[in-house]
């Protein structure tokens, strides 16, 4: 994954004491932390302990991060290690099944999870960079089934005939996001 200039900027600002930049980093990576916890079957207070430890480690690493692109990989590995520690700690009370593959360094499922999370992160970041009208329109289209054009039209003030072309322009804009382009194949149909 290439270096996302916005992450470099956030890390730099958080380093200098900008708490809002730190909050943005937390928002960006919280789903990754949670997804790895879930993969190890941890939720509730266990996941919160793991998250607390991981966030604290990230805080103290702020000054030494050289490659923001490596952050998701570092985070995923750190969460995994903390999850395994948590599972070992309660092994005497609760059977956790076969851990042998969870502990393995060579874990294709884990690599896949990390790739999927990196894709999610890039997608959300690219979406957040879209202009407000694009975000509004696309949000309405996320509904399953998507909201009818007549309803979208009255909600966005876009004439029904313009919704299709606007949607296409917004998605094209999304595809041009350089960080997203690096993690997903965004060729046209």
């Amino acid at each position, binding site marked *: 994954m290439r270096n996302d200039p916005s992450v470099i900027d956030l890390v730099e600002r958080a380093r200098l004491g900008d708490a809002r930049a730190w*909050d943005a980093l937390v928002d960006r990576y919280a789903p990754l932390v949670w997804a790895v916890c879930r993969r190890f079957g941890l939720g509730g207070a266990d996941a919160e302990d793991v998250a607390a430890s991981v966030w604290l480690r990230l*805080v103290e690493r702020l000054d030494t991060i050289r490659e923001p692109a490596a952050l998701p990989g570092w985070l995923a590995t750190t969460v995994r290690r*903390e999850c395994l520690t948590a599972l070992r700690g309660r092994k005497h009370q609760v059977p956790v099944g076969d851990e042998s593959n969870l502990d393995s360094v060579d874990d294709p499922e884990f690599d896949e999870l990390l790739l999927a999370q990196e894709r999610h992160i890039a997608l959300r970041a690219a979406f957040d960079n879209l202009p407000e009208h694009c975000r509004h329109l696309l949000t309405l289209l996320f509904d399953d089934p998507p909201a009818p054009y007549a309803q979208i039209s009255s909600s966005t003030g876009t004439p029904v005939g313009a919704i299709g072309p606007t949607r296409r322009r917004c998605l094209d804009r999304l595809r041009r996001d350089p960080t997203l382009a690096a993690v997903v194949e965004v060729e046209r149909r």
Partner: protein
Amino acid sequence: MNDAEIVAALAEARRAAAEVPERIREIGRSAYAWRTVDAELAALSADTDAAVGTRAEPAAVRALTFAARDLTIEVEVTDDALHGQVVPPRPGEIELRDRTGVVAVARVDELGWFVLGPVPRGMFRLHLRAGDAVVVTEWITI
């Protein structure tokens, strides 16, 4: 990715983010207050427990080593306390801190020895002041 695929992928990414419990984010935001800008970080460089792969026979006494640039803090975990030594030896003061703050303070003697107790449950770190050195270890859970 065609238009439909990219919309579906976006929707999924946003749904995944919405499923994260708010507590996970809150804990993350509050972690920023723990930023230490005045102390040098001592990273965990050795852990007898982590070194043993399958851990069929855990080490009798767990020993941890935290390394800063000019000194190391060595800690042995017994049932009732953390027994440690600052190497090279230098006198000072060492604090045991958990997420709530300072929970114990001990003197580091001329030989660099210190004892901190009781053994903390949950995550903790050590904060050392010795001469002009201010060192904080990374967080660890025993």
